[in-house]
């Protein structure tokens, strides 16, 4: 294996893990709400801006000395606040569309994403410009003769842990069982004294918080935070969830790895590939949807008549 090839593989897995963090949220929310929360990507990419705000606020108080704790605190606050924003959006906007036609919820959340992006642009100081975002983990480690960035290892480890925790939560905890109950049959769940509203809020928090981790990693990977990152990243995360099959967590992960793989491959192989990456990614999305309309692992829904 050549060094270059190995680097590409590392790159692929890193990117795939980041996309997966966002894609599982799309899939989870769809499974529970049965609507597309199109702005989930935009919510996720709010996190870097929250982190920057906290870091700059605390940094001015504590100075250089406290840089690592400040950084960690910033990340933690960003994740929690992003989760809260997800809940807030549900309360203010999305919950109004629970019973509306799917198209309305879809268009409303597309608009919601635009609003979030524009709010960052207008409310964050210098929001239109890119802001440098710290590399969360620096340095390399040598594994079997290849040098691997610690950052990539951290991304893969944290993603695996987060998604693993999500799986564990869904399968083994009370909340997880309630979430599953609501996603299968809202009314039956209500009869079992599970409040769907509470479950929706919990789901929004969990999905948005995991998305926030993905958003922070993406900014760190790119070295900057930009208000319009969420257009690409959000669309890719959504596409990954759709390609894998909305509602299926393993599907979301497979979809993310596929898209990240194609993304990396195109950039490595096609001349001027960086400019064409989205073209290839979305052609893949269109192809998958044409041949497998409910995604790779999605349930083929038989409409009840």
């Amino acid at each position, binding site marked *: 294996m050549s060094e270059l090839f190995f680097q590409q593989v590392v790159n692929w897995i890193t990117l795939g893990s980041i996309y997966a963090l966002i894609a599982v949220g799309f899939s989870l929310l*769809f499974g529970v709400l049965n*609507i*597309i929360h199109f702005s989930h990507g935009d919510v996720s990419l709010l996190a870097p801006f929250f982190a920057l705000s906290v870091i700059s606020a605390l940094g001015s108080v504590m100075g250089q000395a406290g840089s690592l704790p400040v950084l960690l605190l910033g990340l933690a606050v960003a994740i929690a606040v992003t989760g809260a924003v997800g809940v807030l959006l549900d309360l203010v*906007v999305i919950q*109004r*569309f629970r019973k*509306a*036609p*799917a*198209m*309305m919820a*879809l*268009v*409303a959340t*597309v*608009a*919601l994403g*635009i*609003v979030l992006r*524009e*709010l960052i642009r*207008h409310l964050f100081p210098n929001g239109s410009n890119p802001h440098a975002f710290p590399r969360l983990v620096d340095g390399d480690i040598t594994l079997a003769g290849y040098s691997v960035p610690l950052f990539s290892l951290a991304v893969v480890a944290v993603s695996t842990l987060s998604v693993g925790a999500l799986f564990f939560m869904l399968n083994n905890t009370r909340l997880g069982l309630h979430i599953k109950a609501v996603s299968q049959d809202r009314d039956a769940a209500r009869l079992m004294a599970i409040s769907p509203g509470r479950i929706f809020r919990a789901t929004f928090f969990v999905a948005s918080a995991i998305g926030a981790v993905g958003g922070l990693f993406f900014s760190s990977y790119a070295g900057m935070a930009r208000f319009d990152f969420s*257009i690409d990243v959000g*669309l890719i995360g*959504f*596409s990954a969830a*759709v390609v894998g099959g*909305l509602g299926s967590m393993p599907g979301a992960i497979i979809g993310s790895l596929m898209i990240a793989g194609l993304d990396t491959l195109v950039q490595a192989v096609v001349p*001027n590939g960086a*400019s*064409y990456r*989205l*073209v290839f990614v*979305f*052609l893949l*999305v*269109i192809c998958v*949807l*044409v041949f497998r*309309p*409910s995604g790779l692992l999605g349930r083929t829904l038989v*409409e009840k*008549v």
Partner: protein
Amino acid sequence: MAHPSSQPSGNALSAAFIVLAVPLIGAGFLRQFLLAEDWRLVLGLLALFAVVLVVLERLPALETRIETAFARQSRLALLVGIVVVLGFPFALGGNTYALHLCVISMLYAVLALALNFQLGSANIPNFATGASYGIGAYASALLALNFGVSFWLALPAAAVVATIFGFLLGIPSMRTRDSYLALVTIAFGVVVHQLLNNLEFTGGPNGLVGIPVPELFGHAFSDPLVIFGQSLPPQANFYYLSALLVFISIVFAERLHDSRVGLAWNALRADELAARCQGINVTWYKVLAFAVDAFLAGFAGTIYAFYVGFISPDNFTFLVSVTIMTMVIAGGMDNILGVIVGAFLLTLLPEKLRAFSDYRILFFGVTVILFLMIRPQGLFPQRLRRYGD
């Protein structure tokens, strides 16, 4: 208009009066709006418009009366409409900026009418109208720049190209629905934008420049238009051209809405499975909606390209599609008048409220959400059909 609505509505004279008054008042209002400089005046006019809407909604009898008047005197209405539209540029006192805004508003009206076939009639969320618009613009511009094709030939040719792409985009709709289909249209839009941005023959991010000015019988569209000794600014050429396109689009939209095709679209909007069980080939009608949308958008794209003279990929982004969608939703899905009003309102407002134009995109986003939450039927709700009159 202040007649008590209890009067028998058979009075042809009062019908004629209504048909004469309403377009004139509308045009007068639009003129004031276009020429208003002070933001307070703009807001005042907006408030007036809102009051009129509320009154019409509170007094359904008055609304019905106006409607019947137009239905009865449809020939007169057409005549009045044509005279008002033809005369309107003269009322703007040579204000080129106002004329320019009219042209842009009308192009958006065409795009909104195009999208209305899908979003309004058939409830298909198509986020790629902006892409079809761009395909039309690029196709005609490339024909003109590379092969010296005249505007008048490029216009239908570009519409055909856009329609072919519309059919292509429609193909996935045979298998996918709702959110999945929406993603396909978004993906299509992004792919088109990225290709325009990166391909060599489309000029990359710089786009295409130097698109020749159209000519008609030796009259270049860059020259002032002289009618009855009155000289109108060059923009008037495109004003009349776009007005003609709007007129054609309205005819298309009305005829399709009142036809078996419009009914089939409405049926699949309400219940796709029930529509299939009435013998409607749902797939075909969906693809058809995509094609009709692209056809009209292609026309609008061509006129835009030749009007502005240069185009770049950024004129045809996802945000343009969302803007068009906002117009349809705010104006009123499946209501032709509503969609046109929506297009004018949402084109003009950010322009007239300068302080506000920076927040234009935010404004569109908030508008969509608020309308969907509070008034999903839009300013002008759809109407039930009538037969035989």
